């Protein structure tokens, strides 16, 4: 687990120390701690985990364990918009696989990947709870329902200029 200093995160202590202090001495804080770090850096960077382990006195193994267990955490930076394609049951029977396929083809990315221009990150998720509007996807916090593959692509295209 080596990280080249050239790619190092700038101002690590300035950015992460306030977060560490917020949770110091409290019980069961690993998840919100990592969530705050992710919010600050955009992702849970490997070197940030090392820094946290030392400063917050939590074993790095525990931090990595939690970060890799939950779907919410990512170890790589993501695009400007996260596109969550719902792959729940209702969406599945209404053809969400075709929607995911079309997005993959159009933007030349796979599940979990980010477009080369850094605008979209594609994520397949379990269920967004909007089953009666299936198939559904989410861009950031916005939910779009009753999709077709073409409609999904044109919604995403409309985000390019935003």
């Amino acid at each position, binding site marked *: 687990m080596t990280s080249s200093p050239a790619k190092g995160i700038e101002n690590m202590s300035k950015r992460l120390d306030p977060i560490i202090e917020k949770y110091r001495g409290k*019980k*069961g*804080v*690993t*998840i*919100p701690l990592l*969530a705050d770090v992710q919010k600050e850096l955009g992702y849970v960077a490997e070197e940030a985990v090392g820094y946290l382990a030392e400063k917050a006195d939590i074993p790095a193994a*525990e931090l990595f*364990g*939690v970060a890799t*267990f*939950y*779907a*919410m*955490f990512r170890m790589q930076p993501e695009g400007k918009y996260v596109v969550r394609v719902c*792959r*729940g*049951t*209702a*969406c*599945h*029977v*209404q053809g969400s696989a*075709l929607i995911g*396929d*079309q997005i993959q*083809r*159009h933007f030349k990315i796979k599940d979990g990947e980010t477009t080369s221009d850094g605008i979209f990150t594609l994520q397949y*998720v*379990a*269920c*967004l*709870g*909007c*089953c*009666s*509007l*299936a198939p*559904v996807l989410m861009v950031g*916090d916005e*939910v*779009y*329902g*009753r999709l077709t*593959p073409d409609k999904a692509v044109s919604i995403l295209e409309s985000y390019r200029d935003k």
Partner: protein
Amino acid sequence: MPKTLVKVGMASCGVAAGAEPVYKKLTEMLKDRDDVEVKKVGCIGFCYLEPLVEIEKGSSRITYGKVDEAIAEEIVETHIGHGETIKKYVVLNNSDEAPENPRLENQVRIVLRNSGLIDPENIDEYIEREGYKGLEKALKEMSPMDVIKEVLDSGLRGRGGAGFPTGLKWKFAHMAKSDMKYFVCNADEGDPGAFMDRSVLEGDPHSIIEGMAIGGYAIGASEGIIYCRAEYPLAIKHLNTALEQAREKELLGDNIMGTDFCFDIHIKEGAGAFVCGEETAMIASIEGKRGMPRPRPPFPANKGVFGKPTNINNVETLANIPWIITNGASAFNRYGIGRSRGTKVFALAGKVNKGGLAEVPMGMPLRDVIFELAGGIPNNKKFKAVQLGGPSGGCLPEALLDTPVDYESINATGAIMGSGGMVIMDETTCIVDVAKFFLSFVQKESCGKCPFCRIGTKRMLEILERISRGEGKMEDLDLLEELAYQIKDGSLCGLGQTAPNPVLTTLKYFREEYETHIQDKKCPAKVCTSLIKYSIDPEKCIGCTKCARNCPVNAISGEIKKAHVIDDSICVRCGKCIEVCPVNAVSVE
């Protein structure tokens, strides 16, 4: 003159259907009218008609469905301006006939009593509708054991899946001796296809807070935790507002309502792991660890969060509590059949005309739920199966549609009630594909602790993938069954113990469809891509080039005005060519 209230359904599904611009339009047009108030409310469960706008004046309540900005304008001018109802858009009317009235009248709304009626961000509206009356009664007139007895007598059972009697659970936690106890609300609704908890959290958050406070009093807890999934940002927002308002009114905090009872609640956001719906995994997650289950006993009632006695109930269960305490156990248990008392909220989705939420007394036959409440199957297609209980549940065929929906009857079929999600499937749904879908879900979500669950589900998934590619053998079906029972026996928690259910029920009720995939190498529903082939009928094709232009992978070639051909090696079976062909020349075999 009573004020006219304009209520716009702004739960996640309403917003997704376009309620935001409607709300904006209405507030803009009505901003100078002092006698009209535009409000955001939750979801009444008529998702298929979103966006919904209700006009309430005095005792009259009229709801318009599928409202867009233009219709909103019409409503302002004609209905609010001239007092004339615009009949063609009306879906519900409490004083005159309307198309959707029967769907509402067939329901008994206890859990959904406030959803879609009140502004979830205004505690006064909740209080006006008997809110916090149950808590007051519990604290001032009842001992903790009285409360527990009332809940026991009501017959309420856990609505999250397993159906354990809520009063009994509370009794165990009450009896545990400790200086500190936790009361947890499981709002980690992870079953794909279920969304009743989201709707209650978004539309009536105070009912959960009140339910938790009553429960906290009953078991002797001082701290409440709502474990809510992060995929529900609006629910978390409304909960936070509600908690703040409840604290301001001293309905949470120290010495609630002047009594000795001290109780406060905070929210723990889930981080996306299905297994955390399991009690012991949720406890691990609350403690900040990987959400992996542990053996029971000790049960959470004795050793839960940070080793302290803990009671966990799901959202729908808790929404019932204030109503039960206010109205009494007998008012609740007069609904239902057998050992399943009260009502159940169903989330209806999939191939149905009227997707949404409906709350009915336990014991309604599946057929009525699907064909009356959910409005049957669209496009004259034939019903094939209903999937109940999410990844832990099963698929039931037409022959079992007279099964009453209660815990025992549903369990007897091999499915489970689960959280009440129902995904309805028609003849265009492939059963093998559905089984594969669920298996891939549980395989991904298995935490990896028990080898049978971790490896067994993977092997089962591989077999199903083989079958859907047309490479299955008849022995595979026996192997699937054998693995399924081993996983059920060899897994620690509910996830593994129920993971094979979708496969077992489909093997039991739809074995022929598996056999067709294996022996005839055909997918009758025309879903499994390796077993179907798209082709163009040269007799019918007019060479308009539309299919070739629309094909996303350029698999179609041909000259203008001449018959076109699909290159099967490139075709991805997306169906676009069928959609665009003006003369129906494309077919699937």
